[in-house]
């Protein structure tokens, strides 16, 4: 697998989150999922998108730990590297 950069993951995650409702401009690394009104089902879907794109399997347990968009980006980037 080619190396995935943190920026690539960030762009993809923000694109995906924007499809769940929040306005793209609202989404920063610091935003919490709670603020963005991203629920558990959204996170499951995000995990599936990540799995399809980067081959990184994120379990429900992994996702539960995540509080902010930045947490998700770090986790995915570290697994994909």
């Amino acid at each position, binding site marked *: 697998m080619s190396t995935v950069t943190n920026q690539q993951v960030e762009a993809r995650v923000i694109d995906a989150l924007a499809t769940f409702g929040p306005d793209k401009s609202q989404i920063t690394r610091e935003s919490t999922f709670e603020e963005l009104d991203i629920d558990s*089902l959204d996170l*499951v*879907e995000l995990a*599936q998108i990540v799995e399809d794109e980067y081959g990184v399997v994120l379990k429900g347990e992994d996702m539960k730990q995540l509080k902010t968009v930045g947490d998700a980006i770090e986790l995915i980037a570290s697994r994909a590297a």
Partner: protein
Amino acid sequence: MLDAAAGPAVRPDGQPAAAGTAMILSVATNLPGGRLTSAELAERYGISEEWIVARTGIRERRQAAPSERISDYAARAGALALQTAGVDPADLDLVIVATMTPDELTPNTAPLVAHELGAGRAGALDVGAACTAFLAGLALGAAQIESRRAELVLLVGADFITRITDYEDPRSAPLFADAAGAVVIGAANGAHGAIGPIVLGADGSHAQTIFATHAERKLRLDGPEVYRAARACARAGGGLHRDAGKCVGGHDPSGARGRRTRGTPEARIARLAERFRRRLHLGRRRHRVGRGMSTEVQDGCALVTGASRGIGAAIARALAGDGWLVGVNYRSDRSRADAVVESIERAGGRATAVAGDVSDPDAPDGLFGQLEETFGTPVLALVNNAGVNRDDLAPSLSDEDWAMVLDTNLTAAFRLTRRALRGMLRARAGRIVNISSIAGLRANPGQANYAAAKAGLMAFTKTVAVEVARRGITVNAVAPGLIDTEMTTGVSEELLAAVPARRIGTPEEVAACVRFLASEQASYVTGAVLTVDGGLAA
């Protein structure tokens, strides 16, 4: 409006217009529930079923009940075609019904259909040219649009031919059936998808080869002679390729025509029509999503597990009748799955047989991959129908029989649902229907394993329904009671006597409920368990 006067073409708004092109915007059918099988006819004539099937390619045909009216079938097919095309009946300029079996001598069927549909400003007329009436109607409808005398035309082909079939004649009787099919014709943008030239021909000198008199009301047919004459006529027409003879002579009982296969003109036409229908749906979908309304689920395909026989086969046929592209899953009986696919294609639908033992943990990926590749569209309807039973009283029930029934009836449904939800969540649309059983609601001694699996399926249904409801995905269960299938042969008389409706149900009665739950109309029904049991569990 239908402009009967000769002269320069004018549009309905009175403006002169240049000649355009016409295309088929949607296709729909309405079929009677009654079936007349080749096996029944064979028994009547003391011949083999295979003799009929080899000559006609037909194993069963639809037959309307005596009280039913052709205008009702034509109107229902028309309504569905309009709905599929997204056309308001009030916008129709012309309604044409191709029929030789109208309900009355007069009025024509078309005005009744137009009235029923609310096509208030449309002209309406029947075309009574028997086998060629639909093609003649298509030529007429297309010409009206090409000349800009009309913008939208509804053409319905509808006949109850079994009412005039000569059942004394084993050679012609198996050919005929009852049904209605409809197309909406509108303007094509450019030549793409346009209806090509239609060359109509006739030769009245052969009238004696196929006729029905007023007095007798029986269709008398010299099959081989009709076929020869039609082919000669098609060749004389020039420019028509050899398939035309097949189309015109499609009712030939002489055996000259081969069995229908994927490559026949009929199947090709159905596929072409499907492509237009899908293109139209895709357009609507974007539009609807833009307005924040529910998506059109029939853009995707449907997977029905255990669909080679019984309830599963009936569900596959019903969904195909609603325009779904259907994956007919089977475990071992390839030939029966193929027969289901064939019957769907004959009715103008699209389906493909997909092998797979649903209790295999790898089955979901295999089945979904195969279907999505075949149809080029995600699975947006899943019907978990495959089921087995291994009955025994609990004290002697083996671990193997317990595990086998739980694996196939419950665990497989979970795995398939999990796989289906991937695509459905993305699509923000989807329909999952789990075929449970009233055995999960009402004790049936000897079925502890089956009951546990089926009750589990109901609880699973409700839970998943709640989890995904906000994504426009519905999850429901249908719980059949005593249904006439191979699984219930030898069912006890006492059990039957306990059914308030005093009869066994049909697979079609279950399929009709699944068809509804899978439809756009059922968009607010989720987490429900619908019993289809003649009142047994009430």
